[in-house]
C-alpha cells in the first residue's frame, strides 16, 4: 500500500501501519509532534502538520472498513527541501470511493471560497452519528500548500485502497 511522489527513501521521517484506535492515535500524535518539532519550521506549520495528522488519522479510524494484516491503514510523513508530505492509505468500501473523490474535487476546485459554506455547516449541521463534523477534509485542504492529491485502486469487488497526499 505504500506509494509516494518522493523517491528518496531517506526522506521518510515517520511511518505507522497498523490498527487505529483512539488511544493508538493519541500515542502516534505524541510521537509525531516530538519528531516534527526537531525540524526548523515555523510554529504555524508545526500546528498545521499536527492538525492535518489528527484529521487524517481520525478520518481513517472513523470511516475505514475493518481491516486485518497486511491491509492495515498506514500513515507516513516525508520531508524534503523544507516541505513535508503527509500520506495515508486505507481500505474503504468501493461504493463510497466516488463520493469521497467528489468531495475532494469539490474542495480542491473551490478552495478558498468555501469559508462561508463551512461556516454555514458549522452553524446549521448536526454532528454525524460517528461524531464527525464533516469538516476534516476541509481542514486538511486548508492546512495544505496545494490540492489534496488522491488515488484509489480496486482491491477486490467490494473494497478499494484509497491514498491521499498533502504537502505542508
Amino acid at each position, binding site marked *: 500500500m505504500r506509494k509516494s511522489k518522493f523517491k528518496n527513501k531517506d526522506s521518510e521521517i515517520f511511518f505507522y501501519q497498523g490498527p487505529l484506535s483512539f488511544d493508538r492515535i493519541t500515542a502516534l500524535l505524541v510521537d509525531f509532534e516530538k519528531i516534527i518539532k526537531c525540524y526548523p519550521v515555523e510554529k504555524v506549520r508545526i500546528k498545521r502538520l499536527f492538525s492535518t495528522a489528527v484529521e487524517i488519522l481520525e478520518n481513517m479510524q472513523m470511516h475505514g472498513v475493518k481491516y486485518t494484516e497486511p491491509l492495515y491503514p498506514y500513515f507516513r510523513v516525508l520531508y524534503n527541501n523544507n516541505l513535508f508530505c503527509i500520506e495515508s492509505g486505507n481500505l474503504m468500501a468501493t461504493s463510497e470511493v466516488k463520493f469521497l473523490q467528489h468531495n475532494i474535487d469539490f474542495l480542491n476546485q473551490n478552495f478558498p471560497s468555501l469559508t462561508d459554506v463551512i461556516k454555514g455547516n458549522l452553524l446549521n449541521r448536526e454532528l454525524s452519528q460517528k*461524531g464527525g463534523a464533516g469538516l476534516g477534509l476541509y481542514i486538511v485542504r486548508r492546512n495544505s500548500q496545494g490540492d489534496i492529491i488522491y488515488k484509489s485502486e480496486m482491491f477486490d469487488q467490494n473494497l478499494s485502497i484509497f491514498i491521499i497526499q498533502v504537502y505542508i
Partner: protein
Amino acid sequence: MKPLIIEETNATPQIIFDINNKKFEIKGCSRPENVRQFFLPVVEWLEEVYLNVDQYKEQFTEKPAVFTFKLSYFNSASAKFILDILLLINRIHRNGLLCSIDWHYEEGDEDMLDVGKELAEMVDFDFRYIQVASR
C-alpha cells in the same frame, strides 16, 4: 451553582466554569474520543446560567464574566461544540449578564488567531485577542 471542573488530559482541555469565583476558562488541546459526551456538561452548565441569568447578573455589573479560551489545538468535531459554547455565551450576554471573551493564541500561530476571528464573526461577538509567548 456548582462549579464545573474538568481535568486536562492529552486529548481534552481543562475546563473551569466557576461562577462564584468568577473564573471561566477552557485550556489545552481538544480532540475527545466522544466529543458529545465530553462537551455536553459544558453546554448544560451554560444553559443553566442562561435560564437563571437574573440570579447571577448582579455579580457582573461592574466587571464582565470573562470567558478565557486558551486552546492550543482543537479538532473539527470540537469546533462544532466550541461554536455552541460561544453562541450560548452570547445569549447569556444578550440576556443581561455582562460577558466578554478572551481568545489566546501563541505567538506565530496565526491560524489560531484567524479561527478566533472567524468564530467571533459567526457568533457576532467581539473577542479580545491575546498573544502569548510560544511554548
